[in-house]
């Protein structure tokens, strides 16, 4: 009964979403203030209904109600309750419900935190979001209903895929989806601004914090996915250039470009058409990702069970949403003004270069991901594009990005002088050179790639420290925006150092070990001490105990316990690797198969992975930076005429405030 109520709530939600999509917009066209004002309450109502449906499905999971088909396919009565809850997004139908739920969260947030935005703009933005919600709700109700019944009810569920029974699953999809879905806000703002013919600094100012928060979630979600794959899959990989991973990387790259481009539009009124295009692209790539994962056009380990009928629906939806946005763009973009002038050497050009490079990188990833499909569609054969391609094409594009991050942050708006930037480049340049040489010497070997990777990471990191220190010394205020930028850039630098380190210096050994045997990697000795059987809530496992000592010392510094688990509901044994994370490296052991022989032996895979913790630390730093930047004071203060005082990007106290900006603010606020 409750289940049917949940289903009904979704239907109602669709109706409300359709109203939300149409009524406020009609109100704008008719100058009907009442209709326009319906946007906020409709958005909130729509979300409440979806939230109810979501709650109903969660209750069904927690109660192990196997009369609900979706629950019976993805859960089991022995499943620990956190996984029962997370199982809701373990399959196609439920994950779509999560998508729509989070879309409602973002819409409601926009409804609640836009009090100082002109009403007609609010109406347009929420209308667009309502239309998107309608599309997804329609998709769920017609092709992917999570409330379908299974009668007679199953006595026991099929269990959640053991690979997904992990804390990583509980948090990775919600975080990732918050990012994907969050891009719809910047998208809605862009469409609203195009519709209104008002692409100005106010629009950019509004879009930026929302884009920053979405970017932060997306960064966190991607990082979590990498980390989860690393410890869960048992062979120490953390990025495979799998199509679904690429589907999350592409919006991230474009969102990064968007954040930086919005800066220019906000401060200088420039690049409006390009920024709008980026905003459309970011969300389009989110939708494209949804299509790729659920339609079956690409082989991927992440892909949900595919169904061409679903694929057609999503493709049509994608075509409509993106097609109409790009048509609107083609129609309205030519009329936007150019904005304030800029010299060839200026902050603007650095940020523009950033945009170009990141967009090219996105194109490269998109090309590599879709090339097999294109060639197959043209009947010209079947080929594969894998990590060798992406590594060759992607990395070189990132080199200039990393290099330019430092002078870019230092350059002034409108016109930068080389004489002003140069003094701040000397320290990072030499410090990075010393660091890079020193670290590679210490690690054992060097080549161009290693030296360059370490150098670029150190270059950005030292520059960040230097710029913060300089600012502190000057006694200048460091707002969220400035600190956020420096910390996020530092985070990226740390990731680059981590990638360079682990790719070039990791050691892997596949050995056969009996009790008492040991293997040595770097200066670490791994000794197999014991193998025994243990029991879990819904599995049996073979657990090995490996003691780790370092160098000459006899003291056991770590106890690793890799397991091979046999879940009662599955025929597949699961490898649970055991990892010890230090500051500079991970020690990683994976238990393999039993080997036949006179004495019992097991195949063990042992890894020494230096710098891996830096990958995760870097991601966390980027997340922290994003949060700091999102909640900068000036975004929380109401947007009043002449209030645009934030110039906290460069180590320079004075900046001429352009009258044109306050002119913009005054005009739009009065609309």
């Amino acid at each position, binding site marked *: 009964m409750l289940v049917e109520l949940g289903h009904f709530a979704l239907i109602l939600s669709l109706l409300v979403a359709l109203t939300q999509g149409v009524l406020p917009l009609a109100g704008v066209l008719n100058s009907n203030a009442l209709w326009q004002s319906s946007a906020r309450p409709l958005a909130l109502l729509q979300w409440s209904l979806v939230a109810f449906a979501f709650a109903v499905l969660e209750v069904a999971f927690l109660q192990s109600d196997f009369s609900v088909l979706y629950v019976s396919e993805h859960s089991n009565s022995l499943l620990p309750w956190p996984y029962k809850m997370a199982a809701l997004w373990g399959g196609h139908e439920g994950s779509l419900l999560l998508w729509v739920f989070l879309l409602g969260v973002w819409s409601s947030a926009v409804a609640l935190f836009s009090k100082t935005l002109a009403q007609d703009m609010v109406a347009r933005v929420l209308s667009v979001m309502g239309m998107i919600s309608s599309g997804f709700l329609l998709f769920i109700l017609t092709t992917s209903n999570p409330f379908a019944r299974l009668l007679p009810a199953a006595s026991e569920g099929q269990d959640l895929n053991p690979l997904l029974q992990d804390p990583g699953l509980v948090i990775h999809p919600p975080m990732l989806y918050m990012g994907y879905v969050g891009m719809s806000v910047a998208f809605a703002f862009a469409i609203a601004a195009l519709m209104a013919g008002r692409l100005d600094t106010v629009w950019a100012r509004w879009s930026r914090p929302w884009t920053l928060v979405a970017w932060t979630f997306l960064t966190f979600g991607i990082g979590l996915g990498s980390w989860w794959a690393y410890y869960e899959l048992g062979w120490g990989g953390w990025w495979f250039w799998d199509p679904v991973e690429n589907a999350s990387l592409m919006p991230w790259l474009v969102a990064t470009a968007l954040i930086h481009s919005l800066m220019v539009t906000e401060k200088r009124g420039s690049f409006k058409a390009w920024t709008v295009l980026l905003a459309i692209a970011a969300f389009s790539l989110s939708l494209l990702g949804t299509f790729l994962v659920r339609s079956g056009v690409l082989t991927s*380990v992440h892909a949900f069970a595919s169904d061409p009928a679903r694929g057609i629906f999503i493709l049509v939806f994608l075509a409509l949403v993106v097609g109409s946005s790009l048509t609107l763009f083609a129609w309205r973009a030519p009329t936007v003004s*150019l904005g304030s002038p800029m010299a060839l050497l200026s902050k603007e050009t650095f940020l523009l270069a950033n945009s170009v*490079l990141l967009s090219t990188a996105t194109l490269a990833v998109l090309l590599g991901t879709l*090339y097999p499909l294109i060639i197959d569609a043209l009947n010209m054969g079947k080929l594969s594009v894998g990590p060798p391609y992406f590594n060759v094409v992607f990395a070189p594009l990132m080199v200039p990005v990393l290099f330019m991050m430092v002078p870019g942050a230092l350059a002034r708006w409108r016109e930068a002088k080389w004489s002003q930037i140069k003094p701040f480049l000397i320290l990072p340049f030499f410090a990075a050179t010393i660091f890079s040489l020193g670290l590679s010497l210490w690690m054992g070997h060097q080549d161009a790639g290693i030296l360059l990777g370490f150098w670029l990471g150190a270059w950005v990191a030292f520059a960040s420290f230097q710029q913060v220190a300089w600012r502190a010394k000057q006694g200048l205020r460091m707002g969220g925006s400035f600190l956020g930028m420096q910390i996020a850039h530092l985070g990226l630098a740390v990731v680059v150092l981590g990638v360079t380190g682990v790719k070039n210096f990791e050691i892997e050994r596949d050995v056969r070990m009996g009790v*008492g045997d040991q293997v040595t990697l770097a200066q670490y000795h791994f000794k197999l001490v014991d193998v025994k059987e243990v029991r879990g809530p819904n599995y049996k496992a073979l657990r090995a105990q490996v003691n780790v000592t370092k160098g000459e010392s006899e003291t056991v510094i770590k106890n690793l316990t890799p397991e091979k688990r046999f879940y009662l509901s599955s025929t597949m044994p*699961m490898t649970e690797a055991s990892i010890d994370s230090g500051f500079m490296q991970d020690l990683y052991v994976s238990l393999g*198969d039993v080997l036949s022989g006179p004495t019992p032996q097991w195949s063990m895979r042992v890894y020494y992975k230096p710098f891996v913790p830096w990958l995760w630390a870097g991601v966390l730093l980027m997340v922290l930076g994003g949060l700091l930047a999102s909640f900068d004071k000036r975004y929380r203060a109401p947007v009043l005429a002449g209030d645009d005082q934030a110039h906290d990007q460069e180590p320079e106290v004075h900046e001429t405030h352009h009258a044109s900006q306050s002119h913009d603010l005054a005009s739009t606020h009065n609309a």
Partner: protein
Amino acid sequence: MTLAILSESKCWGLCGLNVARAFLALTLACVLMQATPFGVHAEEAKPLAEDPVVEARLVDIAQELRCLVCQNESLASSRADLADDLRREVRSLIKAGKSDDEIRTFLVSRYGDFVLYRPKIKPLTYGLWFGPFLVLVLALVFLYQHLKARAATEQNTSALTPEERERLRAILKEQ
């Protein structure tokens, strides 16, 4: 597709053993464990592979090859039966002194270009390999010209006084 079902059951991100074998191994291990004394002095574990040099080369080559059964994994990491068989073939080809190219040709002639993770550079893949670079160059050229054109318009308006320039900007903005 039913063909896929058999292979898919082995391909949940890990291609593993079947239960019967695993449980048998489990009981065997437990039984024998009682008999093995502890405290034997540490012996350096032997590598799993018979010939680590050949194995290292195998891993290098196999990492850039795609498993045909578990198509999301490389030939190096896949645990599918066919992957085992193909690794065995590559090993014997290495021991027979074949070059990396010859080994790749061996597999491509049987399974097609699909098996290569690094697409061959041929007219069919020119777009793939050179596309991004070309786009970058074109974008930079376009950008440079756009910025110069902008600077030129600014030059043309330098005949105006600062107030007149402001007025012009305001007028342009309202369009």
